[in-house]
């Protein structure tokens, strides 16, 4: 009897909270709603220590917080949510911890693919973003399966950054852009059409040698006050390369759009808000390229302690500065 009463009370309370939440979101929706929110889920281990729990329990509590925040974001109308689940730097942790995190990820991915999960409730498309080749095969396979199963979903998107750092993402994007343009240039025979006049080759080779010399001297740390000339020669050479199109005698160049389309995060627009819990004010190699006009919000709460009030506060502050941020985006 008591259990039934308790159950009814908690259901009523849950219903009341849900209703109140929808009212708050109704009010927030009168202003601009962010399209993409990114989270750095920091503080699981500190939470476990603070509450005298095992470290693994801290991560499980973190997962519950993730599901809650996803529900709040999707209810509000946020289409894209990105979370920083595992950095390449995190591989430096103790092997046992890394293994248990991988196991937890695999377990939670399976849970998310079940019928009654939030993924199916909101029609969420899953993306696992990062250098997935660094992951153990079982985890990678479960991620690939999850992406395949949810590929047809169109309503919402969840991007989980795993084995990710911005540095690695930038290197990868530059590498892919490089290979594309190399293959287009060399295999299409564009190089064969170049004007190989001594003057043209002379400009490039001389500038190249100067740049190499400058780079060597720079690495040695020896003084070279003529560095400016070489730099401007290098810049001149690079500008020649950049302005080059596929006309006869000109080299094609890697463009900013080539690099950006090869970013792992090219599947989503840039985030509108980035929230890092635990009060830390650094990005820790997360979405550095994509956060030029993104306000950074650092509530003191640990990730398992994050709640609706933090999201509401972040969205209110985003709305407060929305016109300024839109103006900045147009200037880029």
């Amino acid at each position, binding site marked *: 009897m008591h259990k039934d009463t308790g159950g009814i009370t908690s259901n009523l309370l849950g219903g009341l909270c849900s209703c109140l939440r929808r009212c708050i979101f109704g009010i927030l929706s009168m202003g601009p709603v962010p399209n993409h929110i990114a989270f750095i889920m920091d503080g699981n281990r500190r939470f476990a220590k603070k509450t005298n729990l095992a470290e693994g329990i801290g991560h499980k509590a973190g997962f519950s917080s993730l599901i809650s925040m996803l529900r709040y974001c999707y209810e509000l109308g946020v289409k894209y949510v990105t979370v920083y689940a595992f950095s390449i730097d995190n591989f430096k942790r103790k092997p046992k911890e890394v293994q248990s995190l991988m196991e937890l990820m695999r377990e939670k991915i399976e849970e998310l693919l079940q019928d009654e999960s939030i993924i199916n409730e909101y029609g969420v498309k899953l993306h696992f973003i990062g250098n997935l080749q660094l992951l153990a095969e079982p985890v990678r396979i479960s991620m690939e399966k999850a992406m395949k199963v949810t590929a047809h979903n169109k309503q919402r998107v969840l991007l989980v950054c795993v084995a990710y750092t911005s540095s690695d993402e930038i290197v990868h994007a530059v590498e892919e852009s490089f290979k594309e343009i190399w293959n287009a240039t060399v295999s299409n025979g564009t190089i064969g059409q170049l004007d190989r006049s001594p003057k043209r080759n002379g400009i490039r080779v001389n500038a190249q040698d100067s740049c190499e010399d400058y780079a060597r001297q720079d690495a040695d740390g020896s003084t070279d006050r003529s560095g400016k000339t070489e*730099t401007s020669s290098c810049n001149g050479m690079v500008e020649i390369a950049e302005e080059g199109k596929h006309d006869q005698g000109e080299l094609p160049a890697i463009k900013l759009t080539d690099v950006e389309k090869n970013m792992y995060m090219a599947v989503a627009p840039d985030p509108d808000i980035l929230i890092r819990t635990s009060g830390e004010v650094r990005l820790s190699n997360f979405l550095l390229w994509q956060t030029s006009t993104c306000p950074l919000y650092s509530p003191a709460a640990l990730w398992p302690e994050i709640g609706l009030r933090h999201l509401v506060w972040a969205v209110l502050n985003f709305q407060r500065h929305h016109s300024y941020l839109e103006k900045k985006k147009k200037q880029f």
Partner: protein
Amino acid sequence: MDLKYPARKLSRSVLTMGNVGLQLLWYFLHILLSIWHSILAIRCFIESCFITCGVLEKYKSLNIAKLRYLAIVIESEDAHQTSKVVKLLQWLDSIGVKNVCLYDMNGVLKKSKEAIFGKLKNAKPIEEVNEAVTLHVPEHMTLEFVSYADGKEAMVKAANFIFVENLKRQNFGGEIDGQVISEPLLNEALKVVGCKGPEPDLLLVYGPVRSHLGFPAWRIRYTEIVHMGSLNFLRYGSLIKAIYDFTKVHQNYGT
């Protein structure tokens, strides 16, 4: 039919009134938010005055050695105020912070370079400093001026530099095996195209929003990013507090 029309009209009126009600509540929430920010600003002002007057003991000694390279992001519209920028740099010099990178999106600070160097004693541009910036003996300030063009566009320039170098190495043909681009290679290429500066330990943002506004992405991997408010409300005490708080931070670097 006759009953449906008034019912539809009534529901539309209810919806409109509901929307107006929600809109009013939205404005009310934002008024509360503005009041909260004003209270915070007053608190910061009072705290800054106490720090400047030396009332708060803990801010009297700063472990400056931990702050090897400082970056300052300034909103371009405020960056025209060269006198304020110079004042900020003079404060930093007096505190002992000698290596500073100044960034604004539109390159306004780059255009004011000469004026800034003219008003500072013993400040040199980073291009004239050849040893690793973070190691030099602090007899003079080293200033670096950066804008949006030194961010993503510089990365593209570095990529093109590597591309042309590879073309020459491969005699303008051939296949490429394995990974061509690596982080050290990109870093070297960035130096060649003129991006010399190291990663800042701390980045202070003088603007309306805490955002790096396009500061070169690869240089702020583990940089602490602190919002200082508008340059119009530049305060010595707030600067001391930001640096002090930075010196107390401990980073795991992912471990």
